[in-house]
């Protein structure tokens, strides 16, 4: 049984060495880590500059990219509702000054709880 999971981490830049962004909908980049291939893809967040409705648009992006887990600090109301509807688990990661790589490590160690 394939239990590969795709984890999204909001990021300030496109590399795993970049700092995690504490927002979700308006984070400039979404890093997606695949537990099967153990590779990380960097994607620009297409919704981040929008005037409104950014949360649902960001959630839609995750759904379209097969993400099932979001590791983030702050997630807005509309985004939370959209993520829930999409069956995406939302885990809390609020370590200050952490990189994307740190967040992935914390997830793999099972240190993170649901928001």
């Amino acid at each position, binding site marked *: 049984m394939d239990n590969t999971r795709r984890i999204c981490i909001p990021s300030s830049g496109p590399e795993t060495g970049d700092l995690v962004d504490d927002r979700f909908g308006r984070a400039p980049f979404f890093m997606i880590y695949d537990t099967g291939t153990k590779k990380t893809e960097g994607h620009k967040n297409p919704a981040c500059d929008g005037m409104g*409705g950014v949360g*649902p648009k960001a959630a839609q992006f995750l759904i379209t990219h097969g993400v099932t887990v979001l590791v983030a600090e702050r997630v807005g109301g509309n985004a939370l509702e959209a993520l829930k*509807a999409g069956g995406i688990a939302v885990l809390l990661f609020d370590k200050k000054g952490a990189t994307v790589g740190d967040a992935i490590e914390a997830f793999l160690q099972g240190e993170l709880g649901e928001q």
Partner: protein
Amino acid sequence: MPSKHFSRVNSGNSDLPFSYVPETSDNIDDTLIMKVTVASGKGGTGKSMVAANLAWALSETSPVTLVDCDVEEPNLHLFFPQDPIEREEVTVPVPSIDLDRCTFCGDCAGFCAYGALLVTKDRVLFFPDLCHSCGGCSLICLAGAIKETQRSIGTLTLRHISDRLHIVTGTLQEGDVLATKVIREAKRIAERPGWIVYDASPGTSCPVVETLQGSDLCLLVTESTPFGLHDLELAYSVTSYMGIPSGVVINLSDGRDKETRAFCEEKEIPVFATIPFDRWIAHVQGVGDLISRRDSFWKDRFIALGMACCSRVEEL
């Protein structure tokens, strides 16, 4: 530059800020159609006070429709005891998705500029507060799964105060956001001959612009404080951008208003009236009465304000 109908009277007591000196006889034109928006910039300067008094005073001899365009918090009806004689719902079209026809392709969500639709592999989520009723999703759906239905977002009421005075009130439902639609509908049912006085919401954003559209003149109500002046400048930038002539009413005046008058002079905006910061005025308005209803002195001054508006529009 003050209107030719005014001469400013300096009084020590600040209870006679100006007096009306008629140059011609006071025949009111029966075919007059004059649309005035009362706006400000800063909240609390006295828009509703000016709008309600102006409407009341003018309705003595002309037909007037007073329109409450502050649809998030309408208050003009508080000055009048009459109940509404008519009530109408305001609705907006929103998508209704037939899940039997939907293929979950996600095209509708991809098209929506407002993030109002979310499509998963087996569900479609709709966020009504984000929808701007553009109709794009129903057009783009190849499966024909999206139908437009009407969603209620507010109400309109009409009050008959006298044979010459009517009040239209637009009220946006609490929690809803599309104020502009309610304003547009309120203005639609207020299209009646005579004066139409629109009481705008504070500020300078979409609801105020919607209210101002099509006005002959804008009365900018300010107060003699730095905040009042700052926001008057913002409001004036909107009216001048929209090409709508304006006139200023300085309310809650300290009798000097140096910076405000300097700004008006620099931009050549006439100061039509000055209303003093006065305890009696605050009391009367505070109990829900109108100074022009209580005292014919003030009724005459608001009639003069109306005439100043007409002159201003005529001279341009």
